[in-house]
């Protein structure tokens, strides 16, 4: 794997590329259901969610986490992500606009591997966090 990140010049506080997901829509959830096999009806079946007392369908948490993962692969190069952990705190609804962003919080060398760690999050248009996570990527 080509190493994209330079360990020496990477500093704590560096920002990852920010990615904006405009106008989240129901087809996003349907497409992700097909791609991932996650057919939990909460994410596409309006009749089902209304019967459960929920106003409308909402995103699979892993769809949002997948969008956020692009910050890591754009930053460090695909194949160089060593650890990616997410916690789900709030639903993502149709019509939301999401900002995926992150920053570096530390660096270390372990077994000869130059590792960069940090935090990532997805914020909706109201400024609320929907997913928070942390990561370790490999640098050169």
């Amino acid at each position: 794997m080509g190493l994209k990140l330079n360990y020496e010049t990477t500093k704590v506080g560096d920002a990852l590329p920010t990615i904006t997901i405009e106008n989240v829509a129901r087809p996003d959830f349907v497409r992700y259901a097909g791609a991932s096999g996650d057919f939990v009806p909460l994410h596409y079946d309006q009749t089902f969610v209304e019967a459960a007392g929920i106003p409308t369908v909402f995103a699979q948490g892993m769809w949002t986490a997948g969008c956020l993962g692009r910050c890591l692969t754009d930053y460090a190069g695909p194949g160089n992500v060593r650890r990616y952990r997410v916690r789900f705190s709030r639903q993502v609804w149709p019509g939301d606009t999401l900002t995926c962003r992150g920053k570096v919080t530390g660096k270390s060398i372990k077994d000869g591997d130059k590792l960069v760690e940090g935090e990532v999050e997805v914020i909706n248009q109201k400024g609320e966090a929907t997913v928070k996570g942390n990561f370790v990527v490999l640098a050169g």
Partner: protein
Amino acid sequence: MAIDKSVVGKTGKPFTMPIEWSKVREFARAIRDPNPIWFEPELAKKECGGIPVPPTFLQVAAFWQDGGAIPMAGGFDMRRILHGEQEFELYRPILVGDVLTGVARIADVYEREGGRGGKMTFMVTEIEYTNQKGEKVAVARSTLIETGQAVSG
């Protein structure tokens, strides 16, 4: 549910997961990731030695299995389940053409007092993946939460 710690350590049947380009492309499109590395084999070969997979791609394996592959703690009420956390530890690159073998096990079960949801039960499931060369490539760790009452928006 009454907490049943005896399920910790229970494993599922090993399952096979071939890493296929069409599925990787479909997944990348679904997460709106336009990186050409997922779509252009020549570029991917030059940069990565093959087409890599997005960091959350292994999640798809959890849904492709029949009942025996993913052990479940008896008594969990699926109507009250939330996906609380997900973690991937990726030890070495996974490329299109690899054939992975996954083994799932229940790593932990515990209870906590929740807020409006009442008492919550947590179940941590780990799937360990090995490639066709016998190398350990990844661990996917899911935390499912059974809330005290039905999930609502």
